[in-house]
């Protein structure tokens, strides 16, 4: 049937106010055990530092908290509900065993300063995960300390800076392709590098001639995403590395799209000197509504002296520990050792897959993206016909003729039971629809998605207003973002 929504249907949405609107004095969700030491006179202990009032903090019971957050949760879309094809975000299944093992007592309750002697379990996890990631990337060493991808970028560029400094030539700028994620230039600025834009060629890849022209001894590194944000593998990757290396520059790889490569090809083998991984993308740790992430940085041998402190080492007696005395280190980028809970989850994912599973995962991710490309080619404009790896980028060129843009199509997709793809990125494709299905989608789910996208394309021709007004099935309709930014209301206040 035409324009039938096979995946989604209507369901009851509970209304729910703000928690503060349910609060009233005397309600409580807590109970402390009786004190086994003498009571204290807080006024005497704290003097003028004593706090008397906690303002408008809520007072609610346990059942109200459970219902509050359960009701709120039903207003979210999630991987657990269906396909979440955000390009470059790798929204894959988050295995539940990961959550279970991260909560095992000794790991969940381990204190970062407990003696090494009783921390061997945690250290062994760091070591095993490090070894796995080093082989997956083909690099020589790794730090797990950075808390997210952007934090990894910063750590990587700090090491690049330290390396050039040690060579006696600090250098001034970072080359960044016009297809790059916004964190790349923002990171370069944080490490006090000037950013120089590098154009893509007609196939969506680094323009080799432009790179040759722009490369000189002021360039510290090129930050490259590979496959890039068009989902295209940089076929001239070694030439790119050679151009950089010939003038003493380094090749930084943003590992956001590593899901296209694991087990099939290793960045260390094609000339990358430093790269970060996103454990919350490629290695299945949950996105959790925006974090926590984890952004390990893998490096070639020549950058090893500059790793952040502390560095994991094996002592002479075979036990594991941390080394702090590293005179050339860039320093610490975070307190303690990084987002350890994410290391546990990532290692559990690697164990569940093994070498065969990781390879099959990559193959399925690339197969899925190509299947969607084939299914939607012709219906949507494909600005670059270069082969697709794990994600495919269309444009809204055909639909724009009817006044319908990528964001409108995305919003209509919600009515069909899917999370939207990434809109309007990469910047080199005007009106981009960036689709990354990941390996977690079955053929059935993708067929539904292709059918939904085709149906929307027909609606654009026949009844564009329906698409322009979408979504129609959500609890709230399109929200006024301009008003939100013009007069920001960033917190609740009691009615006066």
């Amino acid at each position, binding site marked *: 049937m035409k324009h039938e929504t096979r995946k989604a249907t209507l369901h009851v949405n509970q209304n729910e106010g703000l928690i503060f609107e349910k609060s009233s004095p005397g309600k409580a969700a807590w109970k402390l055990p009786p004190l086994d030491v003498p009571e204290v006179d807080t006024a005497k202990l704290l003097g003028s530092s004593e706090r008397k009032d906690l303002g408008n903090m809520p007072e609610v019971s346990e059942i109200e908290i459970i219902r509050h957050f359960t009701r709120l949760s039903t207003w979210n879309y999630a991987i657990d509900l269906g396909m979440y094809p955000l390009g470059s975000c790798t929204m894959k299944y988050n295995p539940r065993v990961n959550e279970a093992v991260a909560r095992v007592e000794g790991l969940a309750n381990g204190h970062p300063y407990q003696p090494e002697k009783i921390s061997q379990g945690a250290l062994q996890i760091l070591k095993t995960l490090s070894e796995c990631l080093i082989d997956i990337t083909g690099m020589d060493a790794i730090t797990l300390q950075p808390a997210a991808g952007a934090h990894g970028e910063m750590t990587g560029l700090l090491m690049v800076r330290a390396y050039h400094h040690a060579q006696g030539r600090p250098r001034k700028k970072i080359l960044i392709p016009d297809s790059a994620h916004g964190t790349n230039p923002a990171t370069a600025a944080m490490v006090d590098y000037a950013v120089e834009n590098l154009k893509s060629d007609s196939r969506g890849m680094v323009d080799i001639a432009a790179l040759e022209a722009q490369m000189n001894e002021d360039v510290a590194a090129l930050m490259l995403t590979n496959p890039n944000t068009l989902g295209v593998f940089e076929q001239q990757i070694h030439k790119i590395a050679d151009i950089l290396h010939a003038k003493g520059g380094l090749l930084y790889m943003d590992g956001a799209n590593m899901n296209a490569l694991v087990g099939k090809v290793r960045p260390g083998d094609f000339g990358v000197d430093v790269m970060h991984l996103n454990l919350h993308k490629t290695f299945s740790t949950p996105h959790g509504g925006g*974090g926590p992430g984890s952004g390990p940085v893998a490096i070639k041998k020549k950058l090893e002296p500059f790793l952040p402190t502390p560095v994991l080492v094996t002592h002479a007696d075979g036990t594991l520990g941390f080394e702090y005395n590293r005179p050339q280190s860039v320093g610490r980028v975070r307190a303690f050792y990084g987002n350890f809970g994410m290391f546990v989850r990532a290692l559990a994912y690697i164990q569940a897959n093994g070498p065969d599973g990781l390879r099959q995962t990559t193959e399925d991710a690339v197969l899925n993206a190509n299947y969607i490309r084939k299914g939607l080619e012709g219906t949507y404009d494909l600005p670059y016909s270069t082969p697709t790896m794990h994600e495919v980028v269309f444009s809204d060129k055909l639909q724009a003729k009817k006044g319908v843009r990528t964001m409108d199509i995305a919003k209509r997709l919600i009515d069909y039971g899917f999370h939207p793809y990434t809109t309007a990125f990469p910047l080199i494709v005007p009106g981009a629809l960036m689709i990354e299905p990941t390996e977690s989608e079955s053929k059935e789910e993708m067929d539904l998605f292709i059918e939904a996208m085709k149906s929307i394309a027909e609606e654009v021709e026949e009844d564009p207003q329906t698409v322009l007004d979408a979504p129609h099935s959500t609890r709230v309709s399109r929200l006024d973002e301009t008003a939100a930014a013009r007069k920001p209301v960033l917190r609740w206040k009691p009615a006066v």
Partner: protein
Amino acid sequence: MRYLPKSPADREAMLKAIGLGSVDELFAPIPAEYRLTRDLKVPRQMAESEIVDYFRQRSRENGEGYTSFLGAGSYAHYRPVIIDSLISRGEFLTAYTPYQAEISQGTLQSIFEFQTMICELTGMEVANASMYDGSTAAAEAVMMAVRLTGRRSVIVARSLHPEYREVLATYATHQGMPLSIAGFGNDGRLNLKELEKSITPETACVLIQSPNFFGTIEDFTAIAEVAHKNGAMLVVSIAEAVSLGIVEPPREADVIAMEAQSFGVPLGFGGPYCGVIATREKFVRQMPGRLVGQTVDKQGRRGFVLTLATREQHIRREKATSNICTNQALVALMVNIFMNVYGKVGLKELAKQNLAKTAYAAGQFAKQGTLLFTASPRFNEFVVETKEDPHAINSRLLEHKIVGGLPLKKFYPELGNAALWCCTELTTRSAIDAAVRLAAKSGGSVPSAKEEAGVEEVAR
């Protein structure tokens, strides 16, 4: 592979639909010489039961069943059960950053409530959706002060968490931000005279921690006065969030950089934790990180969106206030649920129990060693100086499955044989008594666990 929802027949059908003969053709864009032709060197594929066994074994090697007196930026508080019940809901756990507001209202409204509660507790006017942790939040708060004042140099309290200081030093290296250190006095508080001497018209901000690394509550009214008199900002780091239940927040601060781990986040060997930045409304446009704001939909219904995105990297690129993208959303949700469970009254009572346990423990330790910094109020940590090397004391305690206080010599050589001890509502009187007793038994005559009444009970 059990996570992959395709049969061999599905794969065949899909390849056929694409018009390819084999999977290898999909990887043709990768030059052949780089393609990996061997298996990765990772553990073989394991059954779920094997994975669980593996991590249980690692857990047993990781201090399982020990009683601990460690704090120092990472605090063991009770975690109400409903935190994990709720954050385990797939709709929270497996959602992305709430860019598509219509299907992310659950995440967005909960962040709005989080921002509100952080404001209430800190006395600030706006709070962001989270930062990586307390250390990076402090570094980013300082960079925010640098942008706001147009000045570059920074004074950092020596009583700020030493690892926070290291992180700030890393961030500051290439920002042209000279850092200078202000020491602490015999009362454990920032030395005001030293501060007055080192502050200049170039000082962008003074960064302190309260309760500071020693557990001492700083006199931030006096510090703010010195800072503000000189046109500098006051940035306060709060590493022990539970203190906010009973300790007056630094209302005179311009920016507060928090670590909210104490609010329901597991110790987890140091992470993931939950940093937050809170500040005055007038400074919001220089704030890093995501912010949720209230707005209306087309029908005028209340709803929430990510807002003021023009500060952020995906819009402003190299001119953004920070490069932060992914933050600690799910951990912030833990913190949020914790704040709801304890609320206005419970947080105060919880903080009071921490105060009482610590007062008792400090009193007991004072009989055996020298308590430092007694002239100032403290929250749930205290510093004990002993004749014996605290490492030796800790080795003795460890035999009884007790982890003693953190020896401070590594971070503060001038403090000699001092150690930082922490008690929370989870610390029992019997554990305190046992630790005090064992700490006092210096050298030679180490009693066995059996001889020490009460010790076995502690070593659960």
